[in-house]
C-alpha cells in the first residue's frame, strides 16, 4: 500500500504491506534507524515517535495508519548538527549509557515538555514509567528532563507572545 506522510518535516512516500508497523516502516523503508524496536509489544517504549504532537509507540501502530500524519523521530529533534537543549541535558546528566532506550526517552519527554513545560518530577516520572531503561536507573533521565524544562517554558512563552501580538 502507498503511504504518504511527513517525517521530520519532509514529505515522504513509501510502499508498505498492510501489516507493516510504523516502526518497521521508519527503520526499514525510510532508513531512520534511530527509532529502536525493544519489545515489539508496546511495553518498553524504545520505539516511541511523535505523531501529530502525541508520543506514540511505533511498534503498535501500523504504518498505513500514519497516512497524512506529521511524524517526528529522534533524528528530527535537533536543529542541524547541534544537540537540542533536551539532548544537551541528557549528555550533561549522563542520562544514557547504552543508548538503546534513549530515542524513546527523548521523544516521550519532548512530547511531554512541549505540552507541559512546567511538568514536575512526579509528572515526569509518571510519564516516563512507560519507557524502560535498564542502564541508568532513570534518576539522571529525570534530572535531565527537569533541567530541560526551562527551554520548553521559554519556547511556550514566546509562542504565547506571538499569539497576543
Amino acid at each position, binding site marked *: 500500500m502507498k503511504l504518504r506522510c511527513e517525517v521530520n518535516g519532509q514529505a515522504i512516500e513509501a510502499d508498505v*504491506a498492510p*501489516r507493516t508497523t510504523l516502526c518497521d516502516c521508519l*527503520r526499514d523503508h525510510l532508513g*531512520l*534507524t*534511530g*527509532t*529502536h*524496536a*525493544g*519489545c*515489539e*509489544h508496546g*511495553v*518498553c517504549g*524504545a520505539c516511541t515517535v511523535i505523531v501529530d504532537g502525541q508520543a506514540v509507540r511505533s511498534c503498535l501502530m501500523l504504518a498505513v495508519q500514519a497516512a497524512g500524519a506529521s511524524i517526528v*523521530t*529522534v*533524528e528530527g529533534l*535537533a536543529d542541524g548538527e547541534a*544537540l537540542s537543549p533536551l*539532548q544537551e541535558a*541528557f*549528555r*550533561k546528566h*549522563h542520562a*544514557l*549509557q*547504552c*543508548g*538503546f*532506550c*534513549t*530515542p524513546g526517552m*527523548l521523544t516521550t519527554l519532548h512530547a511531554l515538555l512541549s505540552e507541559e513545560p512546567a511538568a514536575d*518530577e512526579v509528572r*515526569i*516520572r*509518571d510519564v*516516563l*514509567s512507560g*519507557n*524502560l*531503561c*535498564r*542502564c*541508568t*536507573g*532513570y*534518576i*539522571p*533521565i*529525570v534530572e535531565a528532563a527537569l533541567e530541560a524544562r526551562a527551554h520548553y517554558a521559554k519556547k511556550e512563552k514566546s509562542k504565547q507572545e506571538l499569539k497576543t501580538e
Partner: protein
Amino acid sequence: MRLVNTYIGRPIERVEDFRFLRGRGQFIGDLNREGQWHAAIVRSAVAFGRIVKIDSAPALGMPGVHTVITAADIGSPIPTIPFRRKNPTIAPYAQPIIAPDFVRYVGEPVAVVLAASAELAEDAAQEVVLEIEALTPCVDWQASTAGTPLLFPGTSTNIASTFTAQCGDAAAAFAAAPYTHRERFSVQRHTALPMETRGLLAEWHAGDNQLTVCGAAKLPFFNRRAMAGMMGLPETSVDYIELDVGGGFGARGEFYPEDFLVAFAARKFGHPVKWIEDRREHFTAIGHARQMDAEIEIACEKDGTVTAMRGIMHADIGAYVRPNGMTPVRNVIQFTAVPYRIPNLDFTGHGVLTNKTPAGTYRGPGRFEGCLFCERMFDIAARELGIDPLDMRRRNLLTAQDMPYTLAAVAPDDGFAETECDSGDYRVTLERCLEEFGWEEKRALAGTLRDGRYRGIGVGCFVEGGASGPRESARIDVAADGNVDVYVGSSAIGQGIETIMAQIAADALEIPMDQVRVLHGSTNYLKEGFGSYGSRATVMGGSAIVLAAENLLKAVRDLASQKFGVAPEELIVSAGVAQTRDGRSMTLAQAAALGPLTGEGTFSSDKRTYTYGTAAAHVAVDPKTGAVEVLDYVVVDDVGRAINPLTLHGQVVGAAVQGFGSVFSEELVYDAGGQLLIGSLADYQIPLATDYPHIRAVTLEQFPAPHNPLGAKGAGEGGIIPVGGAVTNAIASALSSFDVQPTDLPLTPPRLWALIEKARAAKTT
C-alpha cells in the same frame, strides 16, 4: 604546558553520546547487507523430549522461504559450545548448537528458517511441524539431584559440577562455638534483560575463505576462537565485529547456539544472514541467572566475632552448561563470606541441571546471592545475640592490616581458584555509608509504625571482584596529522569505554582528548584481545593503553634522538612533543611523517582487584499489602581510583536499580511441566521510573589498586551486589515486632504480605 592527569578523575561528558542522542548509533538491527537472508529460529515448545520428526515441508512451500536447516543439515557430530573455564566434569553437558535428538528446554533451537524477510521467516517458522515425544522433565534441583530421569544418556548424575571452598577447620569451630545458627535461603531465576535483544549478521566471503560476524559483544575474541574451532577454520579466517550494543550485564555476547547457526547458514548458502531475536524468544533463549537455594550456618562468639561459616548451595543452571555457566556457582562459594575475616570456612556449591533455559552470568554473578546470604546471617545472629548489627560487622570486617587477604581456594581449579583481596580497609566504607545515610538519626525509626507503614533500616557490606586476567592488549597508531587511533581489546556494552579509554590515552600521551579516537572490541583491530566481563575493561584495557602509550612515546624519543643526533635520555618528552635542550622539537605528527608510528602494549595480570563497599537502605513496609517503598538507599564504595566519576556514578546507580528489580519483582516463572510463563515485558517486571527515585552513590579513592599502573579497581557491578542483603535487612528491621526474617526472593507484595500474616498468626496463637 603540562597536561598530565587533566582527564583521569574528571567527570568528562561522554563522546559516545553525540551519536546516540541523534539516533545515529549503529546497532545490529540497523545493519543490512545486499542480498541478505533473514533467519528465524524454530524452538522447542517441550521442556524435555525426544525428537521424532521434523516436517519442514509446509514451511518450505511458503512464499519467500529459501530453506530450512535442521540438525541433519549440520552433519554429525553436532558441534557443542565450548566452555570458558576448565572443569573436569562438565564436558557431557555442553550445549549442541542445534538439538540433534533430545530437546531439554522450552526454547531450544531445533530448526532455522531462512527467508527473504524477517516477517516471512517468522511466518514460516510457525509452520515447521515438530513431533516431539515428551518425557518427564526435571524442573527443580531437588528432583534433578535425585537423578531420575538422567537428563543426559551416558552420565551418572544431573549435577554438572560440585565446587568446594574451604579454609581452617570449620567442623571444629562449629563444635566449639557458643552460638550457631542455620538458615535456608533462595534466590529466584531472573535475567540481565538488556534493552536491545540479541542479533547477528554473518557473511561468508568465499574468495577469501573469510567469515565475518557482526553483532559481537562482551568477548569477541573468545567467540572467534570458538567459532573457528566449530567451523574448522583457522582463527584468522573469522572476524567478530562489534557494533553499538544495547546493554550487556553479563548475558549478552556469550557464544549462543544462534552464533553458529547464523554463521553456518551464511557459509553454506553464500548469502549474508541476519537474525534479530524478538523479545519473547529472548526470554527463553538468553542466559538466565541467579536461581539458587542455600543452607548457611554461622558460628560466633557471644560478642559477635564470627569463627566459622559453612553452607551448601544448589544452583539451578538449566539444561546445559553454557560457556560461563559455572561462574556463579564457583563465585558464590568463594565470595559469600568475603568482606569478613572468618578463619574457618566450608562451602560446597552444586551446579544442578534442570529442564529450563541454560543459565549464565548476570552482573555480580554469585556475589549478589552470597551477599544476601551472608548479610542476612549477620543480622539474624546479631539479633539473637542481642548485639548491634553494626558492631558485629565492625568486629569482623577486613582491615588494612589484613591485606592482602587470601581467600579460600576453589576446587576444582578453574584457573581462577586462588585469589586475594588486594587493598583497603573495609570499615572505611561502612562508616562513611552510615554517615551519608544518617544512620544515627534514622535508628530510632527502626521498627516503628508511621502513617500505617513500618519503617526499617539495614546495611549490607560487599566486595566486588574486578580486572579478570590474564591479559589485555592495545595499540596506538599516530596519523599524519598527529591524531591518534587507540585500538583496545576491551568491548563496549554501553558503559562508555570510548570516553574512558580516550581519557586514559590522552593523559598517558599528554595530548588533548579530541585528538584521540578509540576503536574497540572487533577482532580485526588487534591480534589478541579479551573483552569486557568481570569488571575488567577499564583496568585491563586501560592499563594496556598506558603501556602502549609508553612504548609510543619511547619510539618518538628514539626518532627524535636519531634526527637531532642527541642521546634519547637527553630529550624531554612532554605533551606529545620530544624536545632537545636547545629547543629543537619533534611533534607526534612530525614523527609520524617519518614512517608508520605505532605503540603496542599488553597488560598481563593474574591479580584481581577488589572494590569494597557498604550499602544502607531505609524502607517503609505496608503491612496491609506487603508493598515496600525504598525511602533512601546509599551505597559507598572504594574503587581505588575513579577514571570518570560521572560514568562510574551512573554504573553504580543503574546497577542498584537493577538490584531492586531482583529483590522485588523480576522472576522467570516456570510451571511444573517446564513451561516458561513469562512471554513479554509486561510479565517480567523490571524497575520503572516511578519505582526507586531515592538512590545515592558515593565513591571513594582511599586505597589504590596495588597491581596496575592506574591504581583503579573494577567497578560497576558493586552497585547491584549489596542490594539484596541491605534491603532485606531493612525489611526485617521494619518488621522486627513480628520477627519476620525474609530469606526468599523476590519479595513481591503478596509474598511479603503472607510472611507478615503468618507471623501475626504465630504471635496470636
